[in-house]
């Protein structure tokens, strides 16, 4: 019984790195991981919109997580990766420096955001996972995309 209890409290996360910070995205929200190619710039778009690309016939809006979370342009990865997610029927790609392994983590080890967390991060984070070597910021995809408020409205 304990095992199944444990099983229930475990969640899987796709991890990614942006400007040295590790993030975790719920695996259920992640569609695929790809190398962004043939990006079409969108003039007049918000700065975090890196552009549009064609992924198997669907138009994907690529969101630059670095700019979205105001991490600055330092030490950008040479070959950034994109994590494909879907939100409200639309396809998005989250542009990150690198994609890490998938982690299965115990929900009971999630801490609430520290009160002094940068508000921009606190806005998109649902908690912090204390990994042995590093802290993993758990991301709410809708909030990261800036769609959560509208969905609530």
């Amino acid at each position, binding site marked *: 019984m304990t095992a199944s209890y444990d099983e229930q409290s475990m969640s899987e996360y796709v991890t990614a790195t942006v400007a040295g910070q590790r993030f975790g995205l719920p695996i259920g929200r992640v569609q695929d991981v790809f190398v962004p190619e*043939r990006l*079409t*710039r*969108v*003039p*007049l*778009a*918000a700065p975090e*919109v890196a552009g*549009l*690309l*064609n992924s198997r*016939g669907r*138009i994907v*809006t690529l*969101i630059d997580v670095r700019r979205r979370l105001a991490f600055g342009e330092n030490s950008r990865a040479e070959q950034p990766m994109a994590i494909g997610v879907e939100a*409200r029927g*639309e396809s*998005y790609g989250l542009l990150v420096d690198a994609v890490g392994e998938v982690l299965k983590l115990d929900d009971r080890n999630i801490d609430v955001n520290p009160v002094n967390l940068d508000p921009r991060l606190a806005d998109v984070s649902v908690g912090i996972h204390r990994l042995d070597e590093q802290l993993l910021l758990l991301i709410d995809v809708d909030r990261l*995309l*800036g*769609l959560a408020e*509208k969905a609530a409205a």
Partner: protein
Amino acid sequence: MDDLLREFVTETNESLDVVDVELVRFEQEPSNAKILDHIFRLVHTIKGTCGFLNLPRLEALAHAAETVMGKFRSGATPSTQAVSLILATIDRIKDILAALERERREPDGDDADLITSLVTVLDTIDGQPAAPTASVADYAIGTLVPQVLERPLRPGEVSLDELERVFQETPVDPILARAHATPVKEKEDDGVRPGVQSLRVPLETLEQLMTTVSELVLTRNQLLEIVRRQEDSEFKVPLQRLSNVTAQLQEGVMKTRMQPIGNAWQKLPRIVRDLSAELGKQIDLEMHGAETELDRQVLDLIKDPLTHMVRNSADHGLETPAERRAAGKPEHGLIRLSAYQEGGQIVIEIADDGRGLNTERIKAKAVSQGLASAAEVGKLSETQIHKFIFAPGFSTATEVTSVSGRGVGMDVVGNNIDQIGGTIDVRSIAGEGVSFIIKIPLTLAIVSALIVEAGGERFAIPQLSVSELVKLRSDGEQRIEYIKDTAVLRLRDRLLPVAKLTTLLGLDTSGALNSGFIVVIEFDSQCFGIVVDSVFHTEEVVVKPMSSKLRNIAMFSGNTILGDGAVIMIIDPNGVVQSIGATVATQLAAAAVAAKDQPSTAAQAATSLLLFRAGSSQQKAVPLSLITRLEEIDTQTIELSNGRHMVQYRGHLMPLVGLDNSVRVKGEGTQPLLVFSDGSRSMALLVDEIVDIVEEHLDIEPASASPGVLGSAIIKGQATEIIDVGHFVPEAFADWFRGAGRPASAAKPSVLLVDDSPFYRNMLMPVLQAAGYEVTAVARATEALDLIDKGRTFNAVVTDIEMPEMDGFAFAEHLRADERTAALPVVALSAVVTADFVERGRVAGFDDYVAKFDRPGLIAALKEQIGMSAAA
């Protein structure tokens, strides 16, 4: 059971919409038994099904309404009150149905109020006092178990037998069943004809099919793109077939999405009826063209705006009967809706014969809202002032009425129509009424778009809004000029505001406006030019909605995937209109330095060519700059006049000319045309197919015996005949030249061409080039003299006679007076060759005189003159 219930809800909703409309008609024509029978049958069916499905509330309501209608059928005069009550009952039924659909069961509630009223009405009709409460309780069936068949008849109820008899006796009138909402239209072409089978298909299936076809179109485009780059691919033929089949499939699927606009109008008679009662106005509603079909997605989006506008017309537009009498108008106000197809668009007009827009009030309101200053408003035309009603938050009704003053104004309507890529226009005549003209695309899904490049990015511009393409030249006519900092282009008889696409999109702020193309856009009765770096081809694109992260950008209406797989943004002409006003004034200051006219040495520059096919399969080309417009006309509109094919074009008759001298008009369908204009005159060349627009260095090899062909050149790897437009002009009219003169241009390798008409400049330049001359063209004699002053030398001058500022005679005198050019051969061109003219020309110093259409004569004269001067 679930399926059954869903089916029931759908069917009942449809029936109720019909009942709504029919009741309103019935009220106006109480003697029309057919209408009543029809309503009665529908309500009875609803009642019966309710009983079967165990929906007691619905059944009770339907029953009560049916009973009252039964009285009408037996001859009672329908009172407005009774009809209103039945309508209210139907509304209640609709509410219950909505809840039923949501919750899959009949909602709790009590309808005793309505039923009581219905019974009261019934009793009034019967001439009896209101029935005792007991009978009301009888009707308040909320909880009653339905017993459709096994009980005694209630007061006013009709027996099943009688109903059966009624059904048997009632002639089936399927046309009426369909034509209910459209009393005005012809009744033969729709309705369920016997033998035409129909099938209910869930919407998602169609949507899914549409998406699949869209993908197929994209893939087809990709394949075409690949094959286009290959010579003699064996795929060409099967791909052509695939392409045709795809087009047919696309058309077929589109058809399944089409619905008559009457569906969106269905609720209007009821609304207008209720409004008449509420406002104390007598209003007639006329509907024309309800059978006009629209994509259902578009239909959904315009339904609300239309309803809103009809409400507006009833509330603000139409006067009260007293006011109308005072104004000498009939008491009945009229609201007329009409719809028809025009080209790739659907035009919907909503007109009333009311008081018209109050220009003064709109002015005052525009000023008070800060939309314009009092001074600005003073300069605007009435039409421009009327457009303010589409500005956000604008509503002229001083008092808020329950009908239209609900905070939604015409701005919302305008917005909705923008969203679907449509336009709205208003025409108002004080005292006579207002009409709104809405133009919307037939379908949202697939549009033909012109692919352009600006700032290293490609963009798609909907073809529907593109009226022409102009190649920018730093010389002569087609160059940007400035009024202070505002960039404009002289385009025939008008000044066109222009702006760089890159500037509009915030991609850069620098750069001169002296190269590239101007895409002339006509939108919303405004005309403006967007400067782009290059123009590719047109492509059918499948419009995909933009991500919600981008939807706030007014400059784009959507995005799509091109044949080569790249994502491209689709420009929204409406967004451009909005921003061009703001941008043109500010951003172009930097560019003002640029674009001083350097007469171009035409020889090196690449020429934009339009590739087309006509007659033979060989590719043909004509310089794009010569073409005013590309048109496609319905062959039905071609008229034969005086042995010539003509077509009405922009208010004039335009002659049509075929390449092989005999006009070959297609039997049916549309006919592509190349329109050439000079001043107010136009002619058109009939072609079979427009292939492409390319920019190529034009290296014409003369050697062509066939008339109307300048020579040939290799374009895109294919031998291409360069068509001599000039050859066809005399065929179109002999009197092309009697119009006023215009500036001219000259030839460079050694010939200076001076002609005020860009048309002839453009026409003669390739002729002279083909004959082996280098040509410099200028529009004015003064420009030519400037060039000579700067030390440019030429072997010969070819000049027009009739020109503004300085004519050909004066020009020749100037040349002869200057010792540098005293011996320069000067050949005059004129439409008029009379002995008088020739003599005058000799005196002025012309060496030769050639008629404008006599190109071999011109070449001969040049050869002779240059030969002579070389020998001298």
